[in-house]
């Protein structure tokens, strides 16, 4: 038996429940949506996960600016990478879904646009991180940008998409996922999916940070000899 922290066991348990149930569980029959309604289990948790991960990244940047410990910069880095991964997955699952329900990969939907801008912000953060050679300066300056980007992300994701009508479920008179007859059958899979994928994101960040730490150590050893 591998020794894992409790939250990792919870992740494994929930994912092994969510994935088969997501593909094979009972779902309401809806016109147009048909089986694509299952995207709720995979697309929506990606966004929840991304928000939590980016918030964690911003939090670690804040802590870095307070205490100037480089490990917080490593954490901020890891959370932003995994947040970016989740965002990309969220965008692509959304696009595939949109092609089969709205009829186009990209239709200028406010939520699509907003999430594309959000991804650009964090890609810019990656570019910024890579343009420093000194770890302390990199940590400090990119923490400032990370916090600024996060502050701009909040109006972008939560206020602006609500300004316009949209075909997106939950906007402009379209039923949100709460009213998709989100009967017990779907809830029972959806809520665990959100929790499980978010925890998976934190697990991935954990692995990423450890990998970074090992590469730092190796680099130190290599340069010293």
């Amino acid at each position: 038996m591998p020794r894992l922290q409790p939250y990792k066991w919870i992740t494994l348990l929930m994912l092994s429940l969510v994935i088969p149930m997501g593909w094979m569980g009972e779902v309401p029959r809806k016109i147009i949506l048909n089986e694509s309604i299952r995207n709720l289990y995979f697309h929506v948790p990606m966004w929840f996960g991304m928000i939590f991960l980016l918030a964690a990244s911003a939090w670690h940047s804040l802590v870095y600016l307070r205490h100037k410990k480089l490990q917080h910069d490593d954490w901020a880095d890891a959370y932003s990478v995994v947040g970016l991964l989740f965002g990309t997955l969220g965008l692509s699952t959304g696009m595939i879904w949109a092609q089969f329900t709205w009829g186009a990969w990209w239709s200028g939907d406010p939520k699509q646009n907003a999430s594309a801008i959000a991804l650009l912000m964090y890609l810019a953060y990656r570019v910024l991180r890579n343009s420093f050679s000194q770890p302390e300066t990199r940590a400090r300056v990119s923490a400032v940008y990370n916090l600024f980007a996060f502050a701009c992300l909040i109006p972008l994701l939560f206020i602006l998409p609500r300004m316009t009508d949209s075909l997106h479920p939950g906007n402009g008179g379209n039923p949100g996922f709460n009213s998709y007859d989100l009967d017990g059958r779907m809830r029972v899979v959806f809520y665990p999916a959100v929790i499980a994928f978010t925890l998976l994101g934190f697990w991935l960040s954990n692995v990423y940070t450890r990998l970074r730490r090992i590469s730092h150590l190796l680099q130190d050893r290599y340069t010293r000899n």
Partner: protein
Amino acid sequence: MNTTLGSIRTLLSLIKFELRSEWRQQNVFAGIFLYAATAVFVAYMTFRILPGPTWVAVYWLIMLFSSTHAIGRSFGSSSGVRLLFEQSLAAPGVYLASKIMYNIFLLVLIHLLTCLCMLVWGGNPFQDLVRFSWVAVVGHIGLSGALTLIAAISRKASGQATLMVVLSFPVVMPLMLLLIRLSMHALDGLNPEAGQTYMVQLLALDLLILSTAFLLFPYLWRD
């Protein structure tokens, strides 16, 4: 009380100093304005007659590019010695305030020039030009705040010009969306009450940008 007065005096003299040294290098000013004017002329040559929405789109594109260009050099132009001198004079907040206020002034100038050129060449599609100008000025406050902070960041990263663009465009996008929406209202001469929520959101976004900029700038202050 005395310290408040003192910092206001420092603020004013910093702005005056900036203005005077920029004025001396007139090629810089001229360059920025020529940049805007040429861009407008290219747009005019492409479209000939600019229909309303295109006018707004072209205007904001030119504003976006020339303001990143103009503000991008707001920390880059000062040499290391001058930067050190200015930093020893003022607290970070005062220093940032002077930069932001100077940049607002610069953006308003670019705005006036761009508007003038576009009105001459592209015609006036606006039902309510005055409101458009107000919206633009309120937008310039936020734009200046965001771009000044990004300029300070990209200066720390050895001040590459591409980095400035890459970092600032996604960040100012929420602001741009609101500004374009409000400009469209002015274009159609809609009742001001129709755009009231957007105006409130624009002001709130300005406030958010400025407050985060002032909170974060001290960390970029000195090495």
